[in-house]
């Protein structure tokens, strides 16, 4: 029996050809003999997870922490579910891959949207930056402070409609519900209309179709500068850097709630403690570097830094919180 393996040279060449051809859309898929590092973005190019991968990957390579460039692979589908399932099922012990994540990942885990998989099927290594949630109203609206808005909500909850860029039970919905809940308003009475992304949801506010916009700080800066939107509350632990520094936090207004849209990573669940510690150490070095500080500002992220066990506990608590919250307001049983 003569079975001839393809000549290595030819195989390498064909791999590079395919890589070049498909690389446009998939990131480079050439095999790396286990040497190169990969950051998996569970969404298409251009989204938050993709930017997380590309910016962090760039800094890791620039600092010389990785063997060669860190390549970004896009694996979109099911709000991160495809990437999560594939990480658990096919790459459980792969020490060369990290996967981008955010509270959206946690929210879906909490609501059981990744099937039977849960937060313990992977290991959480850390977060390097964050955005914070905000609530905004049109400049000509009668509400000037969070208190005004809450008073209106209390007197007639059904008269106010909130828009947001995520589906029902998604991030933009949850942050309003959480705020209402902590302020003593029945979350089930809050009216929320989902749009395709923060931009469209904000346009609906500008057009007068809704009363309140629930989103992220970076989404509203342009309209705030033009004096068309008023941000009533920042859901950050402390006042934000930059143009929204004058906006009071919810905590200042007497409602104990924050919404941290952190940008972080998980790794496959079975890589062992040594590899896990190596990744945590790398994130710490990135987080401490001036290069990351600059990349973070470029990507309009606020400072937020948490790694290792601390982050792991943080994520798990968040899953529990989200799950209780979703159950309490009847989003899941």
């Amino acid at each position, binding site marked *: 029996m003569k079975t001839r393996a393809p000549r290595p040279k030819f195989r390498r060449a064909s791999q590079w050809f395919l890589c070049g051809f498909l690389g446009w859309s998939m990131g480079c898929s050439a095999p790396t003999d286990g040497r190169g590092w990969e950051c998996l973005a569970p969404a298409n190019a*251009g989204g938050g997870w993709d930017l997380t991968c590309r910016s962090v990957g760039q800094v890791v390579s620039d600092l010389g922490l990785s063997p060669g460039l860190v390549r970004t692979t896009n694996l979109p589908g099911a709000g991160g579910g495809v990437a999560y399932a594939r990480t658990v099922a096919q790459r459980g012990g792969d020490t060369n891959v990290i996967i981008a994540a955010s509270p959206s990942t946690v929210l879906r885990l909490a609501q059981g949207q990744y099937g039977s998989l849960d937060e313990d099927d992977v290991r959480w290594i850390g977060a390097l930056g964050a955005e914070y949630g905000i609530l905004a109203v049109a400049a000509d609206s009668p509400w000037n402070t969070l208190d005004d808005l809450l008073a209106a909500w209390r007197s007639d909850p059904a008269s106010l409609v909130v828009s947001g860029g995520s589906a029902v039970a998604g991030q933009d919905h949850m942050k309003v519900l959480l705020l209402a809940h902590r302020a003593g308003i029945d979350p089930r009475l809050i009216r929320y209309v989902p749009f395709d*992304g923060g931009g469209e949801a904000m346009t609906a506010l500008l057009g007068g179709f809704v009363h309140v916009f629930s989103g992220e700080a970076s989404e509203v800066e342009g309209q705030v500068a033009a004096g068309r939107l008023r941000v009533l509350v920042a859901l950050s632990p402390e006042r934000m850097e930059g143009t929204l520094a004058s906006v009071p936090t919810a905590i200042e207004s007497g409602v104990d709630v924050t919404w941290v849209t952190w940008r972080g990573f998980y790794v496959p669940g079975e890589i062992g403690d040594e590899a896990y510690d190596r990744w945590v150490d790398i994130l710490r070095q990135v987080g401490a570097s001036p290069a990351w500080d600059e990349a973070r500002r470029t990507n309009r992220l606020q400072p937020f830094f948490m790694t290792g066990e601390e982050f792991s506990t943080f994520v798990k608590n968040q899953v529990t919180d989200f799950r209780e919250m979703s159950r309490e307001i009847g989003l899941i049983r």
Partner: protein
Amino acid sequence: MGGFAIALQPLNLGLALGGVLVGTFVGMLPGIGPINAIAILIPVTFATGIPPESALILLVGIYYGSQYGNSISTILLNVPGTASAVVTALDGYEMTKQGRGGPALAMSAISSFVGGTLSIFALVLFAPVLAEWAIRFGPAEYFALMIFAFSALSSFSGGSLVRGLVSTALGLGLATVGLDPNSAVPRYTFGQIELLDGMDFVVVTIGLFAVSEVLQLLEDTKGGQQTAAAYGRVMISAKELAGTTWTMLRSSGLGFLVGVLPGAGSTIASFLAYSTEERIAGTSGRFGQGDIRGVAAPEAANNAAANGAMIPLLTLGVPGSGTTAVLLGALLGFGVTPGPLLIQEQPDLFWGLAASMYVGNVFLLLLNLPLVGVFVKALTLPRWFLIPGVAALAFVAVYAVNGSSFDLMLMTMFGVVGYLMRKMDFPLAPVVLGLVLGPLMEKNLRRAMSLSGGEVNVLFESPIAITLWALALASLAAPTLLRMWTRDVVAEVDAAVPTGVPDEL
């Protein structure tokens, strides 16, 4: 004028040329769109430290350049690269089969240029006004717009309205697969994680058009080595060009207005432009059988729409498509905050970009017209090479979207479905129309209902919505009225002929 001073700097000129070149080539390959090329280049532009306007000239060049490229595989191979090129296939591929592939490609390049250039003027002149207009489009108005788009249906039904409706229903049905847009509950996914995001447009379209085309070609060839399709002259004639002037102008205007609305986009623009032109042409048109206006209309419209989409992007920070969403990321990364103040605060950026788009469109025309001669040569390829080539292209394109082998199986299934539909004379374009419009229509109807608390009246309240409903009705009634009118004319002509004359012969 200050804009041209920026756009004509050697660096920016070079970047514009580079951008449109890359754009043309990524646009040509179905499934491999401008979005990925832009996403990959964003960190590169950050790293090189070029000024924001230069970086945007490059990135936006890729964006509008791809609108030129997307019609090439559509016209020559019946493989639409993007949703907005599906309509171009109807007459474009028909022209190729008649040996007029060259003029079709040239027409596509010229009408792209006209649509692109005119819309830049409109962009510069009316950006702030149009942004205000776009804001007034709420869910009810979008829903009425979708209804108007569906009234275009009779244009794509190939004569039989029933068959057209069946095809549309199939498309709408496919559109319901995946996560419910409001509540994120899975629908018709049968536990397949790959189906949670619904049927990808590229998978369905490539299957329906390209794979079924391959099956059809195989059947036609019957195993023999038929020679390739002949093609006649490569260039477009002055007469053809003159006959499409008004088509291009009207479609550019229509396309631009639709493009300004975030969430409507170039697909709806091209469908609407095509059906409007067909209505206007009336009985003088041979739409669907290789009418050159059927190429001019959608191509002018989708380029104009692509540029129109820059308005909500720059002045509202609202991206209307995946590609503009990536561009928004780039803008933010360069410290440019989109908003009503952008034009005043960053005049170099806005005017420089607008001027470079004008220059870029000239580059694209100069680039694409000579390429027509090169591309039509593809038709001289023998069938034993062309058929596997199209099949390979289809598989690569679909795999490139999500890197999923499940999509390949889905595409093959749609290939068989498409082949059977052709055999039974069901039109394919309405499936795509249903698939693209279905989710938009559903989402906006549900938004309108939840805003009004279930009051149906909200759909007919605003002047914009009422106008759109009226247009939809008029466009549905137009063919019938036209037929009645022409029948009257025919009857009058008949009556004018003295009766009895034939008897005397």
